[in-house]
């Protein structure tokens, strides 16, 4: 920029720009401090808001958090199932299960379950399945049931109330729980064979505790014939861990933001003290205290705004990177984080610049100019 001789620009603005250009090193280090503070605050706030949703998604890996069961021993009618499905639609993943006790060719009792295997795959990702059934006539066999039914993977026969069904094992399922002793079929085949309707619907409801409990009450209204209950093991564990993770995050955010803010404070205080000669000269040639304060405040505000903007962009980037690296899904940038970051930056810079200025005001220009 060429020094302009004409006074086209107002004096105040010229002072601001010239001060920034001539003292670019100190201004730069102050600006860096502000950018760092702003980006750290943005990243932490963004993460803090978003992490809950990300972790909830992980918690859904535990499977159903609501179980709808037909009352004592019965099974659902077609209407009941429709009501339950429409109540759960959009709020969670609902998977029907039908059960029957059949027997092997040796007469040993075995639990046979009919379900929508595609949905189960999504509901219970922890199931260790060697191969899912692909076509009719195939079954998913629990690892313990396999030892009895088909130790070497050969086709087997199951009986239920005098009717038999020939099945070939597609693969095995291992869960370490009751599923290991069962045989899973597709619901259509199960119904064609046994004529039984589903008696249990397992639902993995998305969202916060409030959303889950509102779904619970909707389900209770729409299916009065059913027994609707939350899986307390899953819901209570989730609430407990989310709470603790959030408070750890919150405290970390407070630490990081306050260190950054204090360092901005330190940097800017030093910066103002360093320029006491300039202020003394300004005062000596007739500037009022107010004018000097306005000048410093203007500078600080410009620095804070630029720093907040750049820091916000950097912070959004950092949050997105952390999201991608850790949750394999970027943390979406939140614009509503910007106003608090900007206000915080302005506040800290104004305090950091105007406070030392007040101390300097009582000193005579002559003393400062003499270097005392």
């Amino acid at each position, binding site marked *: 920029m060429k020094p302009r001789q004409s006074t086209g620009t107002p004096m105040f603005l010229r002072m601001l720009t010239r001060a920034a250009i001539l003292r670019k*090193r*100190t201004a730069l*280090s*102050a600006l*860096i*401090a502000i950018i*760092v503070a702003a980006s*750290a605050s943005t990243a*932490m706030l963004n*993460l803090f808001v978003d992490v809950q949703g990300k972790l909830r998604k*992980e918690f859904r*890996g*535990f499977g159903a958090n609501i179980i709808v*069961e037909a009352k004592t021993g019965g099974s659902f009618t077609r209407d009941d199932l429709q009501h339950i499905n429409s109540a759960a639609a959009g709020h969670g993943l609902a998977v029907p299960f039908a*059960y029957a*006790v059949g027997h092997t060719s040796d007469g*040993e009792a*075995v*639990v046979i379950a009919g379900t929508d295997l595609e949905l189960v795959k999504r509901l*219970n990702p*922890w199931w260790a399945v060697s191969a899912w059934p692909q076509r009719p006539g195939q079954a998913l066999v629990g690892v*313990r*049931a396999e030892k009895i039914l088909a130790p070497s993977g050969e086709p087997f026969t199951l009986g239920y109330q005098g009717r038999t069904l020939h099945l070939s094992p597609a693969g095995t399922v291992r*869960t*370490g*729980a*009751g599923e*290991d*002793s069962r045989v899973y079929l597709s619901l259509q085949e199960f119904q064609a064979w046994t004529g039984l309707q589903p008696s*249990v619907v397992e639902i993995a409801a998305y969202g916060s505790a409030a959303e889950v409990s509102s779904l619970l009450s909707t389900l209770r209204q729409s299916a009065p014939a059913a027994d609707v*209950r939350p899986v*307390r*093991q*899953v819901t*209570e564990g989730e609430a407990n*861990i989310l709470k*603790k*993770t959030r*408070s*750890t*995050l919150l*405290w*970390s955010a407070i*630490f*990081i933001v306050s*260190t*950054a803010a*204090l*360092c901005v404070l*330190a*940097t800017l*205080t*030093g*910066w103002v*003290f*360093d320029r006491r*000669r300039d202020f003394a000269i300004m005062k000596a040639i007739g500037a009022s205290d107010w004018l000097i304060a306005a000048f410093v405040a203007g500078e600080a505000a410009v620095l804070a705004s630029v720093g907040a903007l750049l820091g916000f962009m950097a912070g959004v980037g950092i949050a997105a990177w*952390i999201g991608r*690296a*850790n949750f394999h899904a970027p943390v979406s940038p939140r614009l509503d984080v910007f106003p608090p970051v900007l206000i915080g930056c302005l506040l800290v810079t104004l305090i950091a610049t105007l406070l030392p200025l007040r101390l300097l005001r009582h000193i005579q220009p002559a003393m400062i100019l003499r270097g005392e």
Partner: protein
Amino acid sequence: MFVRLVYESFRRQTRRKLLMATAVTLGAAVSTAMIAIAIDIGDKISHELRSYGANLVVTPADANLDVQIGSVNLKPAGGAALIESDLPKIKGIFWRNNITGFTPELPVNVKVGGADATLLGTYFAQTLTFGKQEFTTGARKTFPWWKVNGAWPADDSNQVLVGEKLASRLGIKSGSKIQINGVDDPVVGIVSTGSVEDDEIVAPLGLAQRIAEEPGAVGKIFVSAVTKPEDAFARRNPDSLTPADRDRWYCSPYPQSIAFQLQEVIPHSHAEQIRQVAQNEGNILSRIEGLMLLITLAALFTSGLAVSAAMATAMFERRQEIGLMKALGAGQFALSAIFVTEAVLLACAGGLVGFAGGALLARKLGQTIFGSAIAVEPVLLPLILGLAIIVTFAGSAAAIRRAVKYDPVNALRGEA
């Protein structure tokens, strides 16, 4: 002379030095606290994850199939069983300190008022001894989501809990009696679990064994253990590993290796991870650990930059001083030596105070959030001091170099 210069510099410029020291102290405190949290968070969260209940189950090696739908157990009584007197051995395995609790279960089919029901025998808070070690374990530890309205039964009594659904069906309240197979037993509480136990009677293990006429028998043991997320190495078959790898596998708290060790101490048993709990636990644990690690990196970076910026400003203010020293004939080496010494002194003082502050912070935070202190390893101290020195240098180095290179005349005239 050198010592005097440094000493006077600290004495006369108290404000500036205090500012720099504060910045270093803060940075060190936050770094210490964050590193301590990042190191310990895995441990803390895996203890919290125990609120999901048992993650391992031990069954008899040649057990029949479970024939259970919901709470209706159609399995005939009898069959293979584990032996109760083997239970304390669980506290003797390599990873015994990672076992937070275990609960045996013995389901028995009984008649209650003419109808079939399941009575579940278990420990509530049984005290066992292994060697000289005494410990308490049972359902209250491994199933924290069980809620009892009334009192918990004593483990050596014939007091029982009745599941809330069964209780409302039979019209039983806590304090009344329930007739099990023709014998009256006192009901001390109504249990609500949100699961199959709501339809069952829960009784001390001894009572269930007497009713089943199988003294000392146990059907299943649920074990709650603090584990490490499983990885590819964990899934290897221990028999196919080299001896060195096998030792490493055995001595890592994977769900698989703990299951293997349980199987070793309990005769005729098969131990397996409960995948719903164990697998998801691993996922969540590694997510939260990863998150804290990344945040800690961000925190280190932030405090490093912020402290550097503060240092740079503070150093830049001293260019006149440097100019004067140069005018009086100080060489570049002498000058650098003075400033380096000052920076190291500052960094060490700030780092020490910051480390102590950070350790205190981490401890307090652990108490507030997790109810148990986060310990800071003394090994961290040299690391924090080193980081403080590096950051202080990085911040002041540019300013010092510039100042040392400047013409003293310009510096003294204030034109630098």
